[in-house]
């Protein structure tokens, strides 16, 4: 980041905390950026002539006579086709050894899309994973996180979704990504020959944690550029948003804000919503879809981070290890895509909604039967059939290694119904049963 001659330089800092510094300065704008001894910082508070800056790289080693240079503008970013295939840090500086990007400068974290200029999302994103396509269909313009335990293979599933999603651009935002995971993504994208569609902004565990705060805005401003200017379908992957929120709380605690639940800032909902709400479908065909990861601690979804996220996103996906079949499945009970009804049965076959519901209902019956079994009660004949069904259903449809087309998912479900149940037991509209019930063997 080069400086310009006319910029005012200050060298007297009044106060230093873990994430912020304060100094006397005048003529400074709110949210203006500055360099503090070469580290990027942003104005977060001005009282009289005292200006407080949040220092992204952390304040370790910052002396009271540090050089503070104000830029006279808020953060911006250079965008253009050359971004494709490149890896950057949270500031947008190359980390792949390649050259600096030349391109159009855009403001980071710009204004909100007028809701009347949005289009209702309506384009189905097939992923081949039945636990997603059949039960939780994704739609362009949607925002949805994986709620995952840290040891679950969410990065693998995310990369599969990304590669199969047929997006024009995939933007990876890594926050606190381990170096191994960073290399994993790089590798997978490389092997798929998809690097030219992919742009990455990565903050790894080795980088200062406050820097993470920049990553979502970097990704989404870039995404907006391609979706608005080039009408492209952009898929943004954000992993891990829990680490992003943790960084938020560090900063807000330094600024003496009264913490609310789980020592998160009271503005957590708004802070997260500002990011996720960048997901959009434009009438001209461009779109931004966000698939994120929110890691849970001890599976607790009532913690402020997943809780606020759940209130913002359009559903959530859960992975679970199904011990009965020994595979990781997309949990049909807790996962939910809120936008699925915009496409299922409309962009997919007519029987999709009812088949989906019926199968989940039967899977629920199986889970009741399992509880009975665990409590030492006898099972009815129906209970036993549901258990058999559940195994098949897990193995042939819910497992994340399934990769088939939606019609085949539906046909598979009908076959399983036929194998384990009577027509009246599945509770599906009669005309659909008449049409799709496999007629080789009644019961």
């Amino acid at each position: 980041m080069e400086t310009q001659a006319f910029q005012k330089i200050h060298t007297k800092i009044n106060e230093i905390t873990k994430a912020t510094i304060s100094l006397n300065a005048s003529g400074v704008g709110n949210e203006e950026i500055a360099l503090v001894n070469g580290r990027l910082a942003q104005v977060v508070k001005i009282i009289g002539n005292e200006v407080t800056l949040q220092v992204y790289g952390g304040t370790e080693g910052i002396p009271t006579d540090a050089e503070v240079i104000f830029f006279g503008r808020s953060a911006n970013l250079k965008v253009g086709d050359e971004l494709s295939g490149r890896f950057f840090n949270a500031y947008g500086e190359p980390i792949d050894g390649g050259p600096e990007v030349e391109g159009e400068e855009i403001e980071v974290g710009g204004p909100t899309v007028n809701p009347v200029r949005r289009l209702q999302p309506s384009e189905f994103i097939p992923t081949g994973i039945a636990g997603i396509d059949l039960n939780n269909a994704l739609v362009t313009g949607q925002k949805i996180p994986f709620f995952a335990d840290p040891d679950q293979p969410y990065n693998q599933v995310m990369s599969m979704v990304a590669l199969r999603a047929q997006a024009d651009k995939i933007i990876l935002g890594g926050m606190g990504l381990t170096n191994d995971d960073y290399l994993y993504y790089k590798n997978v994208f490389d092997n798929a020959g998809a690097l030219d569609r992919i742009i990455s902004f990565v903050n790894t565990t080795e980088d200062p944690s406050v820097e993470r705060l920049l990553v979502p805005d970097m990704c989404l401003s870039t995404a907006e550029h391609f979706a608005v200017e080039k009408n492209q379908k952009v898929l943004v992957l954000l992993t891990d948003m829990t680490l992003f929120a943790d960084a938020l709380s560090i900063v807000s605690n330094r600024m003496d804000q009264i913490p609310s639940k789980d020592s998160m800032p009271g503005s957590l909902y708004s802070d997260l919503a500002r990011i996720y709400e960048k997901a959009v479908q434009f009438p001209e065909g461009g779109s931004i879809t966000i698939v994120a990861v929110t890691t849970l601690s001890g599976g607790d979804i009532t913690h402020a981070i997943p809780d606020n996220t759940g209130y913002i996103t359009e559903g959530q996906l859960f992975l679970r290890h199904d011990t009965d079949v020994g595979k990781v499945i997309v949990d049909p009970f807790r996962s939910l895509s809120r936008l699925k009804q915009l496409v299922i049965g409309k962009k997919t076959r007519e029987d999709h909604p009812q088949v989906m519901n019926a199968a989940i209902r039967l899977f629920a019956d199986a889970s009741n039967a399992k509880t009975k079994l665990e409590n030492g009660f006898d099972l009815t004949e129906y209970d036993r059939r549901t258990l058999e069904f559940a195994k098949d259903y897990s193995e042939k449809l819910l497992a994340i290694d399934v990769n088939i087309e939606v019609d085949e998912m539906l046909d598979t479900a009908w076959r399983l119904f036929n194998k384990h149940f009577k027509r009246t037991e599945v509770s599906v509209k009669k005309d659909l049963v008449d049409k799709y019930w496999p007629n080789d063997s009644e019961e």
Partner: protein
Amino acid sequence: MSKKDNVTKGKITGIIANLVMVEADGPVQQNEICYIVQEDSRLMSEVIKVMGTTAYIQVFESTRGLKVGDIVEFAGHMLEVNLGPGILSRNYDGLQNDLDRMEGIFLERGSQTDALDHEKKYDFKPIAKKDDTVIAGDWLGEVTENWLPHKIMVPFKFKGKFTVKSVAEEGEYTIDDTMAVLLDEDGKEIEVTMVQQWPVKVPIKNYREKPRPFKMLETGIRIIDTLNPIGEGGTGFIPGPFGSGKTVLQHALSKQAEADMIIMAACGERANEVVEIFTEFPELEDPRTGRKLMERTTIIANTSNMPVAAREASVYTAMTIAEYYRAMGLKILLLADSTSRWAQALREMSNRMEELPGPDAYPMDLTAIISMFYSRAGYVYLNNGETGSITFIGTVSPAGGNLKEPVTEATKKAARSFYALSQDRADSKRYPAVDPIDSYSKYLEYPEMVDYLKQNIGDKWPAHVQLLKDALLRGREASEQINILGDDGVPVDYHITFWKSEVMDFVVLQQDAFDEIDAQTSIERQKYMLEKVIDIYNTNFNFEHFEEVNEYFKRVIDQLRQMNYTEFKSDQFHQFEKDLEQIIEERKA
């Protein structure tokens, strides 16, 4: 409202996010509107606290780039809305800017657009006559807005009695034309147009009386109408964890409720949900009138990515518009999704001002603020004897889904009906996931409401509804026993009791919001089906073994659900009904 001769000005002295401190050079009023002057725009703000000569203002826009020393101009009035013909079918932001008139894809900072159309001509018919004595809120004339008879009233701000000097003749006028000339008590002439302003935080009280709600507002949603009806002019709230169906339920209400006008405040929730309304409502038909739904709807959108401070304003803007239309003798349904976001906006500001925090860091007076707001709903007798109503239903998004949190608790004190969405029911896809046992409607305790239900639905209706509730409770108890003791650890009767309650659950309570037919159920149909399941409930069945019970009742439920999915009293409906009777005969004792 104090009018000032000299405009007060000020200079910015501090900025913390969207809280800005201003040194003012003259008098400032609490909640006064002011504008921060920027090179190419003026940023609207509201005074929320005054200390000496420092005004603390919340800025309704992004504060990026603001500097100490920037000029602020005070407007001399509180946040006001423009009331007049042309509000219907509009999409406003929280400050009543017309979103459709904003240019470009993005909401550029400081852009303000007119709430009303000043060019459009409306057909006016006079109501008041020369020499009539009138007071604020009285009807002077009427224009047709879309299809709705829109009353032109004596402005609500007018105090005292007035004599009508003249009223415009029948004809076409714009909203800024003079529609009447009034004489005040001193004989001074005052001109009245079709437009008036009103401060949103002040209730409009131009009515004679506000009785308790005594009629039911039909919503077409069985779990509300049958189980816990909401009174016309009543209040209700829908708390529930994320994903439990608050928004789907509110959208269903907005599509189906028997109201003249629907006002939806999208308050700090998803933009895509508002877009859904933008997209569907101009297409969907209002089954009662054949008109498009959008023709009776106004949307106030402050989605979660729009400025936080304007979120608080948005619910007040919506309520004030509702009060304006109520004064015309109309039946308004006001919906707000989610009131928790409004409370959170209050919390953010309160924290920035370093006020002493109450529970969960919400402001201390949260309960008072919420109950003040709910109390603006109501059924009213206007001065001319006509009636109007605002029924208000808000959603609440409790942190962690735990109902023991400040916003839910404060709302519980203010709202009279309670539709608690249960995570368990949502997880098992028993939609709408309203918990039939925890939820209540206080209106059922009003004798005048019970009389109304008896007269309008049937003498036995309240008794049947009670029976339904008892049966559900008994079913739950039976299921608990079965779970503890095991299927064959209890008498077969327990299974029958449980499954009879399942019939009621599946057929009456559960309703598919996305099925064209099932989504909306008329009261006539609700009555028909309730009687049907009560007949089954009162029937004695013969079973040897519990396994037969389960299988049998699944068939019964399946048959009844097919009925729910087919057109009421169609041939197919009666066919399913006949088949059902046969199934019943199989096991009848």
